[in-house]
């Protein structure tokens, strides 16, 4: 108790200091400082703020006005599209003649600048923000205004295939690190004027653009509101990846289960938007967060909706099966070998006993040893450069497995078990869920080694209890199974044909319930309207 209090006090103190610091910084960069009439003063101020950073280019020049007024263009070297800055901003500013001395500013804005995105600003802070986000700033002597000209154009990676979520059938393009591109990809797929993109700037220092996507009139307002509020509450110094946000947005921190889905597929984003979820994009990350996420989502692949329903249903069942294998097989192995050999078919039990005869460890140690080394291999094969990775994985697995068996360190059965487990955990389409299963396997193994089958079942019960307690943006994690939503169960274990999935998932409480409107009442019954109507 005392510890907790002390910790609390310490946190409070730290918070205060942090607040103070950031305040100073903001004041220094002048929250409210307007743009001065004196150009030099402005330039000096900026130089002060950026501390002579060499990548900031300040170009001062005289314009062809009757009195040769000075102007300045400021930008960051590699962040702007130089073509635009040079040809359509600098050249007209320096070469076009302006006869009318009285309103140079108006002339500049209306005639000279040949770029599309132009905004007039009056605050120094906006100037700074503009420069930092890759725009070009135009300042004019004797004016308290500045122009922000959209010239963002840094080098980016070309659109690539989503690596973690590859599909056989379905689009091959993945979201980009540049959120504007990503947004474009989403817009390209969903030409709905109701698609809302709300922007936030999160990160006191990184000033990362975060966009919240939802469909007005479809997505439940409460979910949008929750997302909005949670985003607003984040006061962190930097956001580099969606992972930062994910941990701030999720309802429950102490859990191995992911409560927010991430995807790098624009089609998947749109599909989820259409189901009534919200998506969150972070500039600089090729992933989108999707919330609320329920458990069933983590063994679904976008491909399920592209292939024919029978195939997808079959694949889903396979995935569920592999999910169970990945989670339980080692634990069952331990329980059977150490506690209940009567459950193994008798010929097999003799073979297993023979295989284990030379093994000096109990089965739990054997299993931990093998599972541990396979985890190491897996981690190592990710780090290994390019083409060697998989090779080393296979070679390592084969060589270590075979020689461990030959050396009598482990039994042949555990090699099969570990192999099955590893392969099964790869069958899971979402990486973060697969990892949590890999993790949960160990407590189950330990439970099995203490109390056998009974231990496994108790551990499983606690796991299920925990899963039931989790909520994601207010939606219970185990929906549609608990609470039961028949309408949505059609898309949980198997996937029924699209025809019969007319209702959007009812647990998301979408404002617009049906995908296809104006169905006759008869068809409506068939397509699950009745089922979703009785749910609140």
């Amino acid at each position, binding site marked *: 108790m005392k510890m907790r209090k002390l910790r609390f006090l310490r946190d409070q103190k730290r918070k205060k200091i942090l607040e103070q610091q950031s305040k100073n910084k903001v004041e220094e960069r002048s929250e409210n400082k307007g743009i001065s009439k004196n150009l030099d003063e402005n330039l000096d101020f900026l130089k002060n703020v950026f501390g002579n950073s060499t990548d900031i280019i300040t170009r001062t020049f005289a314009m062809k006005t009757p009195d040769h007024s000075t102007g300045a263009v400021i930008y960051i070297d590699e962040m702007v599209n130089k073509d635009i800055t040079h040809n359509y901003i600098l050249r007209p500013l320096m070469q076009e003649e302006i006869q009318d001395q009285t309103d140079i500013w108006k002339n500049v804005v209306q005639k000279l600048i040949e770029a599309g995105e132009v905004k007039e600003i009056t605050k120094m802070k906006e100037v700074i923000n503009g420069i930092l986000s890759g725009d070009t700033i135009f300042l004019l002597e004797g004016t308290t205004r500045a122009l922000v000209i959209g010239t963002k154009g840094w080098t980016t990676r070309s659109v690539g295939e989503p690596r973690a979520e590859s599909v056989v059938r379905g689009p091959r393009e993945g979201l980009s690190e540049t959120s504007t591109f990503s947004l474009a990809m989403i817009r390209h797929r969903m030409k709905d004027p109701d698609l809302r993109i709300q922007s936030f700037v999160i990160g006191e220092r990184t000033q990362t653009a975060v966009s919240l996507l939802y469909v007005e009139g479809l997505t439940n307002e409460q979910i949008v509101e929750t997302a909005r509020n949670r985003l607003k509450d984040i006061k962190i110094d930097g956001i580099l990846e969606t992972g930062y946000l994910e941990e701030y947005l999720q309802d429950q921190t102490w859990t191995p289960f992911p409560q927010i889905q991430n995807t790098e597929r624009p089609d998947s984003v749109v599909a989820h938007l259409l189901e009534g979820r919200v998506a969150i994009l972070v500039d600089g990350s090729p992933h989108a967060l999707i919330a609320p996420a329920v458990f069933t989502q983590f063994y679904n692949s976008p491909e399920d909706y592209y292939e024919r329903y029978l195939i997808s249903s079959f694949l889903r069942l396979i995935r569920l099966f592999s999910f169970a294998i990945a989670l339980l097989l080692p634990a069952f192995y331990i329980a059977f070998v150490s*506690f209940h050999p009567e459950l193994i078919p008798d010929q097999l*039990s003799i073979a*297993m006993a023979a295989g284990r005869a030379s093994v000096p460890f109990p089965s739990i140690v054997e299993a931990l040893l093998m599972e541990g080394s396979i985890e190491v291999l897996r981690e190592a094969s990710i780090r290994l450069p390019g083409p060697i990775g998989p090779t080393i994985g296979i070679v390592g697995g084969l060589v270590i497995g075979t020689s461990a068996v030959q050396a009598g360190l482990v039994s042949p059965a555990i090699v099969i078990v570990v192999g099955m487990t590893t392969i099964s955990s790869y069958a899971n389409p979402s990486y973060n869920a697969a990892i949590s299963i890999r993790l949960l396997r160990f407590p189950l193994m330990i439970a099995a080694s203490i109390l056998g089958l009974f231990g496994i079942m108790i551990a499983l019960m606690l796991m299920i209890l925990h899963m039931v307690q989790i909520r994601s943006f207010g939606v219970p994690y185990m929906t549609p199974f608990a609470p039961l939503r028949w309408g949505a169960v059609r898309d949980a274990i198997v996937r029924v044909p699209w025809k019969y999935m007319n209702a959007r998932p009812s647990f998301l409480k979408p404002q617009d319930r049906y995908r296809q409107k104006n169905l006759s009442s008869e068809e409506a019954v068939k397509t699950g309207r009745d089922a979703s109507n009785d749910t609140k």
Partner: protein
Amino acid sequence: MRHLPKVLIFMLIFPLLSGCWDRREIEDRSFVSAIAIDSAEEEGQAEISVQIPIPNKVTGGGSGGGGGDSADGKGPSGPFELLSGVGKTYTEAMHQIISSANDPLFFGNMQVIMISEEQAKKGIEPFMDALKRTSEVRRQLYPVVVKGKAKEALNIKVPSEEIPTNYIRGMLRSGTKNGIFTDVTFGQLLIDMEIPNCQFPVMNYLEPIEGGYKWDGVAVFNRDKMVGMIHGREDIAGVLQVRTNQRGHVVIAPRSDGAIAFHPYRSGRKIKVKPDGSIEIHIEVTGFIQEKTSKDDLSKVEVIQDVSNQVATIYQDRMKRLITRSQKELQADVLNLGKYVRAYQPKFYNSINWQEEYPNIRITTKYHVTIHRYGISSD
């Protein structure tokens, strides 16, 4: 972070707990695949032997296979151990075995209980209680009575299997599935033994022969003592069809110029009990003709009819013989009819002692045989 201490405590406790109580690795158990109960020289004692396969020597499991060395005819004939103990009860005998075994015995995978004919006649009750009390023991194992010494029957060298138990298990399993051996498992035995005043269990009877075993009918028990047996596959048909609702063996009907083999594939029975205790059994057998060495033209309806009638008569005669034998000679309710009398005429049943009254019961049987088809040949 506030959960860290809890997690740490759990992580420390778990490895310590693991390895307590029931954890015993598979290789540290001696799997008993069969036990044999023989009568010992001393009065009221029995010799119990357990067969324990040695995993490492069984081919397919681990390195190298190969049988044991039975050159002198004394040692085990295959990759297994045979340990014996003598005692008045099961546990007493088992104690002697345990004290000579390296690992604790494990009965979860036991397949067969072999009882020597001699011991079966003396009574098996004292050796059954421990088995039914242990939850490890499965109810699906096969109790059998063997001719001669049961321990030696476990030590027969079977060419097709390394462990003789597997041979017996396979033999009984397929035999019962085909409906030619009585489907008696340990569980069924226990159920049969619990009907008040009608305790007539039966078990399959095996005779060890060179290189295997021969099924030789069923051993009939009165309470826990074997009172006799019904040999061969002919008389057994009644037991199979009435007691366990199986179809029975092929029947060969002699014809004027050859014979016709009738292969039953389904059999059903209806048992009626009159208030005075007399029993009527109707049995329907359906089957096909497997072989014909006579000149009969099977494509004629009359011939088929004739053959079925003949088969029915054969069945009928056998049944009559069986019932007469069971009432006169064995005085044991081989067909377990007491169960039906008790169920349908409880008043009558309670007024007599079935166990003793059985020989005086009037039993009539009626067969109806249907021949469905006669194979690919057109006649």
